[in-house]
């Protein structure tokens, strides 16, 4: 922590080497946080970079009351949320590049995941990822924070600046929607052989 404090102080003075050290220290955690929210490496890379760029430009406003990672994490989550909202690309996240759906988004499928990776992930897990990524950005982020990052509702409420009750509702709503999707997918799977050749 003391290391961080020194590096932060140096970065505030414009020492880019110090800031670079901070980037190296936190890049993986920030990147993974962004990856969990965006669902693909390209967007995660964008978000992670943007997070550090914003952090550098505004590090003068960081007063050290929270630890640096929490601050970076908040920036990353908000940056990712903004990106998801503005680009409305939830429909083309985590698409199989081998399938027709892969053509929906050139960026998500061209640069991110190779077929090998998809094999690694496995069908079942990929379907889970797809379902999660089909949720609205806010529900997705809340669910990811609650289940993947395993943050307490209180912390999520602070991060997203909403009441705890809202967090709880969002998590439940996300789960309800996942349940619904699963049901509808199963039904569609049963009907498809009859309806299509």
């Amino acid at each position, binding site marked *: 922590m003391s290391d961080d404090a020194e590096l932060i102080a140096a970065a505030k003075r*414009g020492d*880019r080497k110090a800031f670079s050290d901070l980037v190296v220290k936190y890049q993986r955690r920030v990147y993974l946080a962004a990856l969990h929210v965006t669902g693909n490496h390209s967007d995660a890379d964008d978000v992670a*970079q943007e997070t550090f760029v914003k952090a550098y430009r505004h590090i003068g406003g960081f007063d050290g009351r929270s630890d640096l990672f929490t*601050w970076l994490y908040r920036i990353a989550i908000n940056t990712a949320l903004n990106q998801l909202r503005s680009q409305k690309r939830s429909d083309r996240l985590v698409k199989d590049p081998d399938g027709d759906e892969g053509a929906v*988004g050139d*960026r998500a499928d061209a*640069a991110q995941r190779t077929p090998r990776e998809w094999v690694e992930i496995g069908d079942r897990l990929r379907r889970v990822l797809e379902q999660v990524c089909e949720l609205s950005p806010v529900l997705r982020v809340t669910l990811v924070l609650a289940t993947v990052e395993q943050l307490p509702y209180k912390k999520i409420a602070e991060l997203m600046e909403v009441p705890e009750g809202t967090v709880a509702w969002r998590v439940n709503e996300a789960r309800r929607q996942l349940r619904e999707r699963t049901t509808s*997918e199963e039904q569609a799977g049963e009907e498809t052989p009859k309806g299509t050749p």
Partner: protein
Amino acid sequence: MTRPDPPSDRDIQDAFGALDGTLRDGQLDDFSSRVLARLDEPEVGSMDARELARGSGVSRPDEAALGAVPEPARDENSGLHEIKALASTTRRRISQKITSEKEGEDSLLVGASSGSFRAAALPDPAREKAAPQGRAVEAHPVVVRPASEADRRSMPSRSSSAPFWVLGGVAFAAAAAAVAVFVFGVGRANESDKAPASDVIARADTPAPTEQGAATSAPDGNLKFAEPPPPPAAEPAAAAPAEVAPGAVDEDTTVARGDAEGGVLAGRAGASAGGGKNDEHHADPAKGSREEKKEAEKEERKPARKIDGKDLGDVLDQVTGKVEDKPAQADGQEAQKKPTKKELDRSDVAKAMGPVRASVMRCRDKEQFEGTVTVKFQVAPSGQVTSAEATGSKAGSPTGACVAAAVKKAKFPPFDGAPTSFTYPFLLAE
């Protein structure tokens, strides 16, 4: 019927754990250098103050707003040289990579996301025409936002080149003054010659009180150009800065220069389009009125490109002594020298994109999108954009379509050769 199991928390954790596993070893090795390279770029959008306040624990958002950010000291003795060199190398590498990539790999352009690609309008790699190296340095992005204080803060390279801008500004002001002197000189010469009837009409249409009023209220090249009496030398010199100053945008000098050209010449060309082809009396009489008509049509189509049938660049070059003074309007063919360009270059693209910025900005407002929209477009030898479409992440989106439609309205100078494709990233930000 068995009820299907929704994904449990465990499933979700496993899925995201697997997703984490796709992060390859070494994938983040150059991450910090890419971040550092982006630090020198203009800020895409101001950070949400609430975001900062939340993050830093600051109770009042305004404390964390831009004003609270200290200017990072540009300490050249702080070991930044390596980092700067690394940043510039990375930028150059990405830029080179992009220009050498084959068509269809636009995802790389967008996916690179370091923002370095924004630094240039990229000639279509399919044509394998590398942009002139010398110009690569000059290339500027079309940043669709007004120059802000934050920009100036975050652009050390710009501040380090301040003397260049100052010198450039002074040189441009001097050139503009020289143009004005030249134009007056031409006006006087024409006055002494026997002017064609159309020219006389144009002057007759401009009553003296109006000219004077306009000249005193706002120095206007058009009125001064049409004004017969020889003005004092100081007057055009004083008028020049008034035209240059609004164009002194620090974002893109090329575009700013183009704007200034338009501002100086638009009205002037209008006067000449009305029949004021001052070189007409130098032309071969055999060419007759057909020639004149053709020229007038040309002038109407490209009002900002010519003065008296001469390209502005030639006029500037002549008066600033860059090139030998050609026998001025020695023959009527002088006026027909367009198109002279063999191909379009980056500066042409930058100039053409300048007037489009406002439309692109409207797309940003309309679609509520901030980010980069890359548009691929094709320019015909006539200078018209024949096709434009968004590529990358905004392909097929309303925002992409909006920006592409704006780009379609861009006008390029005519050139010889085959239609040329360009890929141009627009940065939509406040």
